[in-house]
C-alpha cells in the first residue's frame, strides 16, 4: 500500500505544480458550450424583455443561415451582462438602455468592452395609463391630476393609495423618488419581473379596468393594449443626476450595442456583422409581436421577418 500512496501523492503534487504555477485568468474563459464540434460560435446576451429577444433572434438567424456560425444565448440581467461581456463569456449585447457607471468602468478604464454603435431603435420610459381610461378621463394624462384618480387606481397591494406598477428590478427606474418628490398619493408596487407585469396588464385590460404603470417604448404590448403616456415634468439635461431628487420625466435614449473588445478585434465576419446590425423601431416591434403575441418561436419569427425584408439586412453582411 505505502508505495502506491507515495506515488499518488507525487502525481497529485506534480499536477498541482503544473496547473498551479501558471496563472489562470478567469476573466478570459469562454462558455464551456461555445465552439463545440469545430463550429464557430458567437454568444449573445439576451435580456429579459421581448424587444431584446427580437434583436437576438434576427441576429442569430442571419449569423447561422447566412454566415455559418452557431449562436449561443445567455439570459442575464443588464448589469451582470456587462460584467459577463467584459469577461468574454458573452460576445455582444445588442440593446443597452444606458449604464454610465459600467461604461466608465469597462470601456474607459479597463478597455475590455468597445462600443458597437446605434441599434437604430430609440427607447423611452414613462408612466402609462390604458387608452380606454385616458379617453374617458382626458385629464389623467397630466401628472398634476393623478391624485384625483388615486382612489380609482388603488388595489389590495397598494393599501390606501393609488397603485403605480413597476416591473423588473433590473430596469432603470426613478419611480419611488418621483412619487415622493412630486408628492403623489401613490404607492409603487414592484411586479418583480416583466413577465408578471405584462400578465397583470393584460388581465386589467381584459376587464377594462384602469391602471397606471411604468412602461417603455418600443414595446409590443402597445399593439395589444393601447396605452397613453402620462406627462411628467419635462426632462432636462442633468435633472436626473441625483437619484434621490429626481422630479422630471425620463429621457429619450438611442439604444446602443456593445461588443467584447477581443471579439470586436478578432471576431471576423460575426463581429463585422454585429457592428453593422441596425434596424428600426417598427422592424423590432414586428418581430417582437410575432414572438410574444402570436407565440411564434423566436427562430420562426426571425425567419419570417428576414424573408420579408431582405433589403434591410443584406447590407449588414460583410
Amino acid at each position: 500500500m505505502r508505495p502506491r500512496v507515495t506515488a499518488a501523492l507525487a502525481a497529485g503534487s506534480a499536477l498541482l505544480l503544473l496547473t498551479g504555477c501558471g496563472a489562470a485568468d478567469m476573466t478570459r474563459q469562454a462558455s464551456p458550450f461555445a465552439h463545440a464540434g469545430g463550429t464557430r460560435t458567437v454568444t449573445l446576451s439576451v435580456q429579459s424583455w421581448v424587444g431584446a429577444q427580437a434583436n437576438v433572434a434576427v441576429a442569430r438567424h442571419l449569423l447561422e443561415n447566412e454566415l455559418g456560425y452557431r449562436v449561443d444565448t445567455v439570459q442575464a440581467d443588464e448589469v451582470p451582462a456587462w460584467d459577463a461581456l467584459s469577461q468574454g463569456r458573452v460576445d455582444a449585447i445588442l440593446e443597452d438602455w444606458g449604464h454610465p457607471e459600467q461604461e466608465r468602468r469597462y470601456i474607459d478604464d479597463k478597455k475590455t468592452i468597445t462600443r458597437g454603435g446605434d441599434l437604430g431603435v430609440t427607447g423611452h420610459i414613462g408612466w402609462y395609463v390604458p387608452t380606454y381610461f385616458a379617453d374617458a378621463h382626458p385629464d389623467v394624462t397630466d401628472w398634476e391630476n393623478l391624485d384625483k384618480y388615486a382612489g380609482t387606481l388603488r388595489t389590495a397591494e397598494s393599501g390606501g393609495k393609488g397603485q403605480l406598477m413597476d416591473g423588473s428590478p433590473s430596469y432603470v427606474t426613478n419611480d419611488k423618488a418621483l412619487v415622493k418628490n412630486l408628492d403623489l398619493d401613490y404607492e409603487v408596487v414592484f411586479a418583480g419581473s416583466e413577465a408578471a407585469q405584462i400578465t397583470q396588464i393584460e388581465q386589467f385590460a381584459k376587464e377594462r379596468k384602469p391602471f397606471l404603470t411604468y412602461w417603455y417604448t418600443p414595446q409590443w404590448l402597445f399593439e395589444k393594449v393601447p396605452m397613453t403616456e402620462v406627462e411628467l415634468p419635462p426632462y432636462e439635461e442633468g435633472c436626473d443626476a441625483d437619484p434621490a431628487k429626481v422630479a422630471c420625466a425620463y429621457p429619450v435614449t438611442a439604444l446602443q450595442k456593445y461588443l467584447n473588445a477581443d471579439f470586436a478585434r478578432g471576431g471576423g465576419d460575426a463581429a463585422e456583422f454585429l457592428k453593422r446590425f441596425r434596424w428600426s423601431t417598427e422592424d423590432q416591434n414586428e418581430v417582437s409581436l410575432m414572438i410574444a403575441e402570436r407565440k411564434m418561436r423566436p427562430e420562426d419569427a426571425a425567419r419570417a421577418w428576414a424573408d420579408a425584408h431582405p433589403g434591410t439586412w443584406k447590407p449588414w453582411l460583410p
Partner: protein
Amino acid sequence: MATLTPAAPRPAPLRALRALRAPRGRPVAKLLVLAALAAVLVPLAQARWGAGAWPGALTVDVSAPLGTAGDWIIDNRDSHPLFLYVLGHVSNAIVVSVRAVYLVLLAAGWAGVTAAGALVAWRAAGPRLALGTAAAFLACGLLGMWVPTMQTLALMVVAVLASAVVGALLGLAAGLSDRAERVLRPVLDTMQVLPAFAYLLPVVLVFGIGVPAAVLATVVYAAPPMARLTALGLRGADPEVLEAVTSLGTTARQRLLTARLPLARRELLLGLNQTIMMALSMAVIASVIGAGGLGDRVYQALASVDVGAALAAGIPIVLLAVVLDRVTGAAGERLGAARRPPSRPLLALAAAGALAVALAARLAGRSLWPGAWEVPIAGPVNRAVDWMTAHLYSGVPVVGGTADWAARFTTWVLDPVRDGLLWLPWWSVLLLVAALAWVIGTWRTALTAVLALAAIGVLGVWEPSLDTLSQVLAAVAATLVLGVATGIAAARGDRFERLLRPVLDVFQTMPQFVYLIPVVALFGVGRAPAVAAAVVYALPAVVRITAQGLRQVDPAALEAARSLGATTGQQLRQVQLPLARPALLLAVNQGVVLVLAVVIIGGLVGGGALGYQVVFGLAQGDLATGLVAGAAIVCLGLMLDRVTQPTARRPRKGA
C-alpha cells in the same frame, strides 16, 4: 424518497393514549423562566430603545464596506494573485470538465446517449426503469430540447460529481472524528434549510455570471445531504461487525475500506440520490446566474409569458429528475438486498452496445436530434392556460374569480398579519420566538432562533423580513390545512394514494419557476401569487409526510381504540393524529422550509420584501442590497427551522 423513522418506542396502546396528555419537557417551567427573564430585560430595552420596529441605534450599516468589496473584486479579478492562481484555476477546471462532458454527450449523439442511459439503468435497476429512461430521453428530443438537455446534463454530471466528492470527504471527516462532527453538524444542518436563492449572490460576486458560478452554487447547495448521510452511515455501522474486523488485526484504514464504507453503502447511495435531486432543483434557479441549458429556456420563456414553452423546457427537467431518482433509489434497494454489483464483462458489453448504437447513428448522419421529429406542445398548453385564466380570473358567479380571492386574501389575511407583526414591539417578537422555540425544542434551538432574528434587526432589514415572515406564515397555514387534510385522505384510501403519488412526484420535481406565471395569471401581481406558488410547492411534501406518519401508527393502538368502540373520527382525532405527532411536526418543519424557498422566489411576481431585494441585488449588481437580504433570508430560515424543530433531527429536506 426518504423513509421516515419515528424514533419513539411503541408503548402499549392504553399507556400511549395517556402518555399523549402528559406535557413534554415541562413547557410551563420553561415559560416561567422566560417570563422572569423578560420581566427584567424588557423594561430595560423599552426604556433604552422604545417599542415599535427594530431600533435604529442597534443596526449596523454594512452597505458601504460591501460596495467597496464588490468594486475591489471587479477591479482586481484579472490581476490579483488570489484570482489568478487559486480561483481562476477552480473556474478553469469547471469550464474544462463541463466542456469535456458536453463534447462526449454531443459525440455520442441522441441515439448513443439514450442507449447508454438505458443500459446503465438496466444494470442498476432492471429492465422496467431502462425502458423508462430511454422513453424520458426520447421525450426530451421530441420536445425539441435535445441540446439544452445535454447542456444541463453536462453541468449536472460535473456538479453532482463534485458535490458527491466534497460531501463524501466532509462526511468521512464527520463520521470518523468526533471533533469534526461537532463543528460540521450545525453547519450542515443550517445549509439544509437555506433557500437556494440565498446562495447565488456570493458566488456571482466572485466568479461573475456564467457556468463556473452556476456549478459552484449547485455544489454548495447539493453537497450537504451527501455529507450528512455519509457521516450517518459511518456512525451507524454495526459495532459487532467492527469488533470482529478489529479482532482480525486490521489497520484503521483497512477497517474503513473493507468494513465501514461497504456497510454504509445504502446511506452513501441515498446521499447520492438526494444530491442529484437537489442539484437538479438548482438547475433552473442557477439559470438566473448564467447556467444555460434547460433552466435558461424556462427563464427565457417566462420572460415572454410563454407558459407552454416554459413547460416544454421544464418537462425534461422533471423527466431527468424522476428517472435519476428512481434509478439511484432502485440501485440503493438492490444494494440493500445484498445483490452482487454487476460483473465487469456485462458492463463492458453494455458500453460496447451503447458505442455501437452511437456509431450507427453517427454514420447515418443523425447525431443531433432531427428537427422534423419535434412535437410542439407550447401552443395547446398556452391555449389551455389562456382559457383557464379567461374563465376563472373574475366574475365567476357566487364564488367570485381568483382575482377577487387574491384581493380578499391580501386584504383580510396578509395585510393584518404583516401589520400585526410590524405593530408588535421588536422585543416582543423576539420573546415570542424564544417561547415557541423553547417549548417545541431545547434551549439551544431557542437561543439560535432568537440570535438569528436579532441579526436580522442588526442588519437593518427588520421590516422587509417581517413582511416576508407574514407571507411565510400565511402560506404555511394554508399548506398545513390543505396538506394534512389530503394526507389523511391518502392514508385512509389506498386507491387515492396510488392516484396521488405520480402527481406528487411531478409537483415536487417541477422547477419552482414554472409555477410563477400561471399564478400571476390567476391571482394578479402581488403577495397573493407568491403565497399561492409557495403553497403548491410545499404541499406534496406535507401530504407525503402526513400520510406516511399516519400509516406508521401502531396498528395495535388503533385496534385497541376500535375495540373500545371509537368511531372513525374519534380514532383519527384521539389515536392516529396524536400518535403521528412526530410526523406532523416534521411536516410543519418541512412545510416552513419549502414555503420560505418559494416565497423568496415570489419576489419575481410582486412578493416584494426580501425576495425582491435579492432579485434587485442580482439584477443591478448591487451587492450591498442583495447580500444583506440574502443574509436576512439565511437568518429567517434558521429562525423558522429552529422554532419548528422537534428535538430529533430528520434525515433530509426534500422529503
